[in-house]
């Protein structure tokens, strides 16, 4: 019995300490130090939330760069991947059709190398990034859809170049581009109505 009482009391003590005080202290500190990040890195334009810098969005419109395939269609409730193994015929078919889709959409040569992340679904289903190559391959289609002149086309290429996130501290991770930020930048520079579909 004595053990049970000790156990209940110390459990209560640790619940208050590590279950309430600890998260509250951390919340207090980070809400002061990095409020934007601790609240989801939201992108707010004209007082309207447009998304989170960290959470990918689905882009179907021809005027936007497309995101990676997602097995949850960028619906974060809940996040997740396809969980298909490499010997799954479902995965094989999906990769083949995504490859054809990407080539068709961007009017590429049928032998073009489509970057792997554009035919394979991400782990979270919310991957906000694509590789720089995947962005460059979409330029031709976006120029056409947006009716851009050659001057604007080179401006677009500059935007892509300046959007590349290189490995952090020169070493960690892969080079990638945040699709939502890139598309927002397109809208800003080329004055597009964001609901033009």
């Amino acid at each position: 019995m004595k053990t049970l009482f000790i156990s209940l009391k110390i459990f209560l003590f640790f619940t208050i300490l590590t279950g309430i005080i600890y998260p509250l202290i951390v919340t207090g500190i980070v809400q002061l130090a990095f409020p934007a990040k601790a609240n989801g890195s939201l992108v707010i334009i004209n007082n309207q939330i447009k998304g989170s810098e960290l959470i990918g969005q689905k882009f179907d419109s021809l005027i936007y760069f497309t995101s990676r395939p997602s097995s949850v269609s960028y619906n974060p409730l809940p996040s997740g991947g396809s969980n298909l193994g490499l010997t799954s015929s479902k995965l094989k078919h999906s990769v083949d059709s995504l490859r054809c889709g990407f080539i068709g959409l961007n009017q590429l040569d049928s032998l073009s190398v489509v970057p792997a992340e554009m035919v394979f679904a991400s782990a979270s289903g919310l991957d906000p990034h694509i590789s720089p190559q995947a962005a460059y391959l979409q330029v031709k289609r976006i120029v056409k859809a947006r009716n851009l002149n050659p001057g604007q086309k080179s401006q677009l290429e500059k935007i892509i170049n300046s959007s590349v996130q290189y490995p952090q501290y020169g070493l960690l991770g892969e080079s990638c581009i945040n699709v939502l930020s890139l598309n927002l930048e397109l809208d800003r520079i080329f004055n597009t109505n964001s609901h033009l579909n």
Partner: protein
Amino acid sequence: MTTQDYLQILLFFAVLVGLTPILGNFMFKVFTGKNHLMKPVFGWLEGLTYKFSGIDPEKETTWKSYTFDLLIFNFTGFVFVFLIQLFQSQLPLNPANLPNVSWHSALNTSVSFMTNTNWQGYSGETTLSYFVQMIGLTVQNFVSAATGIAVLLALIRGLARKTIDTIGNFWTDLTRSTLYILLPLSILFAIVLAGQGVVQNFKSYETFHTLEGATQVIPMGPAASQIAIKQLGTNGGGFFNANSAHPFENPTPFSNFLEMLAILLIPAALTFTYGKMVGSVRHGWTIFKAMLILLVLGLSISLYAEYSSNPIFGNLPLMEGKETRFGITNSVLWATSTSAASNGSVIAMHDSLSPLAGMVAMINIMLGEIIFGGVGAGLYGIIIFVILTVFIAGLMVGRTPEYLGKKIQKFEVQMAIIAVLAPNIVILLFAAWASVSSQGLSGLNNSGPHGLSEILYAYASAAGNNGSAFAGLNVNTVFYNLTLGIGMLIGRFGIILPVMAIAGSMARKKVTPSSTGTFHTDNWLFIGLLIAVIVIVGGLTHFPALSLGPVVEHLLMNKGITF
């Protein structure tokens, strides 16, 4: 692979090796009651804990009382976490209005978090309220890790002491591990993570229109504080379903590097602490080296598999279930570390790894979670293998086996065998049952040999208290929730009980001074023998099952066959 890939791996191991003696020495001071850095900061809290709970910190107990205290304490946590899930809709901090959890899922989750497994049959963001995540699960993240350290400390005292009945006080070991090691590291780590973009708030889920006008709802919550201890305490249970692949749980390559380091940090440092506490820092490093060799071996096989081409996808880099910002190398390094260390958090979906890389993750778990392993648990797990190695070496040369000056006898070897067999029996029997019963087969997401791998991985993960999964398997059913729950209990306490018995029995023994005939446990010969024993035991047990799953899948993949 590029130079940058190799450099990232090198940096990872360099930092790990560098931090091992620093944190190891700090933990030595904490556990031996010496003055240390955190004493002035949290010393008053230690006193307060004892006063509030009515604990006499000076009183030491026998191994039986120690184990009894541990079991009662774990049971208390289990009941609490079980109950708050059943009634979460009536409890506060539930902005998404999530309903009560089903009894079998709640049972599975409370066993899972008590046993430091953190297997998740549910999706965090659509199942559990902030209240349950924070007040239920975050607490278990701390105390289950501290429980692992406590068992280790009892075993160390058993080995280091002579002719005595007591092996310490569970409550003080639990308190010191939590207050001086887990809590300060977690506070620091949580703040750094939030600085990278991990969410930490109590807001409702955010609803808005995307750039194209679709509605998107993104979850929020006190994630950073839970993720910090989830990584440090080899827990691994994600705040969100996609675990550390979720951009809110692991937003940048830097947060990824730190989270990956946190997986191995404490288990690695404990080898140094161990060496110091038993009076041979060299022996501590010997164990560290054996673990590191096994880890690097597995990593090499995985990298080779992931960077190889195959007839199905040609030269296409295998990015299914991986995140762009991390790429393949980080994903494989993480998968190897998380399976070796009984952590179980993921940044890539293990179900979509190439067959051999998935098999390496499975083998890391099946070998007994002793390649660094869980916090505390990895080290007491490998000490079991050390005892077996010493015993076998003793048989070979015809001498009474000795470890750290103490005789290894029938009782210790019997207990060691029980500890080795317990998780393996769970894996083989339950996986066999699931793969021939309709309840088991109905959960499959993949067919062909990969389906068997999904089932095999699930029971390995449960019995090894790992928590990662071939997550395509739908396990939120009565059958899986119950069998996996039992598997986790046997995998945890089926090792803890014999380890405690060994601790008690070793504490009572005399120390014989070492002589020229003593078998040394701090040289390369010993490392070789230890690795051989680990690999032979694990290999003999699991090779048949593995050959029907990942091995055959690998061969079929190379013939271009899909299912």
